[in-house]
């Protein structure tokens, strides 16, 4: 009787091994087929996103010079360049961090607010990109969203403030792939422009500039009417820059 039980157990074990092998094979095949469906970037499905025109920043009483030290991706997106997965996929031609940097620098440069390097900058910006591209919408249209925060730091006083910027854009859905691509591109560009405008024309930036420049020891007194003081950097080239995020 005991022998019978052992035999039964052995047969059962073989069956389990067979079932496990089957499951493994199925998993391997499924992974392969999924991989085959993953969209790949080609010149046809890649879009170039940039600002149509520089965004004019708000007017400062004594305009400071900004320098963007680094742009960091905090979206947690494993495929940051993939904008749309459906319809064969749609990709950005550059990383969202690069596009964001270019857009902000372009706008600052056009208004003569961009410093050549960190040493000559009054305020150093460190950008954290939280979202870039399409977000979940109603399904009836495309919902573009660009969200980032900027840590504005005075390299002289080592004081910093964080500001948020969000840009949204809604564009009509389309049926034809060509129109989908056109609409998505316009949508992401719209959201990017909106986010850059939200940053550069925001009251948060105005307050941050006023606070950080006021506390500058070598700066002259703050300009009247909400204006701000102006001072050059200390020549550290931003090497000593440590944001609150890095400290964490």
């Amino acid at each position: 009787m005991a022998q019978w039980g052992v035999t039964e157990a052995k047969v059962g074990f073989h069956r389990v091994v067979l079932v496990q092998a089957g499951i493994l094979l199925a998993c391997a095949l499924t992974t392969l087929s999924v991989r085959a469906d993953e969209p790949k970037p080609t010149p046809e499905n890649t879009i170039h996103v940039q600002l149509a025109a520089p965004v004019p920043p708000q007017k400062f009483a004594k305009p400071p010079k900004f320098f963007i030290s680094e742009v960091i991706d905090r979206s947690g997106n494993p495929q940051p360049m993939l904008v749309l997965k459906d319809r064969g996929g749609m990709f950005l031609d550059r990383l969202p961090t690069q596009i964001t940097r270019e857009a902000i620098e372009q706008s600052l440069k056009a208004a003569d607010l961009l410093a050549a390097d960190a040493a000559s900058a009054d305020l150093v910006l460190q950008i954290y990109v939280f979202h870039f591209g399409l977000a979940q919408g109603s399904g009836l249209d495309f919902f573009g969203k660009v969200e980032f925060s900027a840590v504005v730091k005075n390299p002289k006083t080592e004081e910093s403030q964080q500001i948020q910027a969000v840009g949204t854009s809604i564009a009509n859905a389309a049926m034809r792939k060509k129109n989908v691509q056109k609409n998505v591109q316009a949508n992401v560009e719209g959201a990017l422009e909106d986010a850059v405008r939200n940053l550069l024309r925001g009251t948060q930036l105005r307050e941050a500039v006023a606070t950080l420049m006021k506390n500058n020891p070598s700066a002259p007194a703050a300009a009247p009417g909400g204006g701000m003081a102006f001072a050059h950097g200390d020549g550290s080239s931003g090497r000593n820059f440590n944001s609150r995020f890095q400290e964490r």
Partner: protein
Amino acid sequence: MRLLTAVLMALLVVAPGAAAKDPEGVYKTAEAKHFTRVEGVELSPAFSDYLYAELRNELTKTKLFAQVIGEGEAVEDADAANSVVIDGVIMEYKKGNRATDAIIGFGVGARSLKLDVNLTRRSDHQSLGAIKVQTKISPKWNEEVMAKVAAQQIAHQVKKGLKDKTKG
């Protein structure tokens, strides 16, 4: 006589169109803010973002504002008196019941959203009106569709309210 008839005919064609035309860019700017929500409203965090985006989109379509700016953007002092701020609170959200909606229908089991919207002048924060909006959709539709419908209703009410105020 022929000339007079022609002029009359032309007036009959042009006048209704001119009268029905909306006043474009009456206000310099409109700032839409993210709506807050009272405790107990169980909506995804992305809902507020989408409602904000849709509201801005719908406000632009009203053609009542020269520019619909983002939350927290600065406005020139000269334009502040002719600018409005729109903010609101999500008071209630009922996610509905698909079974009840399918069996009974007629709005029973529908997904619903109640919003209190405030319209203020930017320069002196004077209230230009308070709007109560209730949106009901089938529970088959997702939250974002509800946001779209709610944004359309808000924009419509804002346009109506501001036009009445301009006329009055």
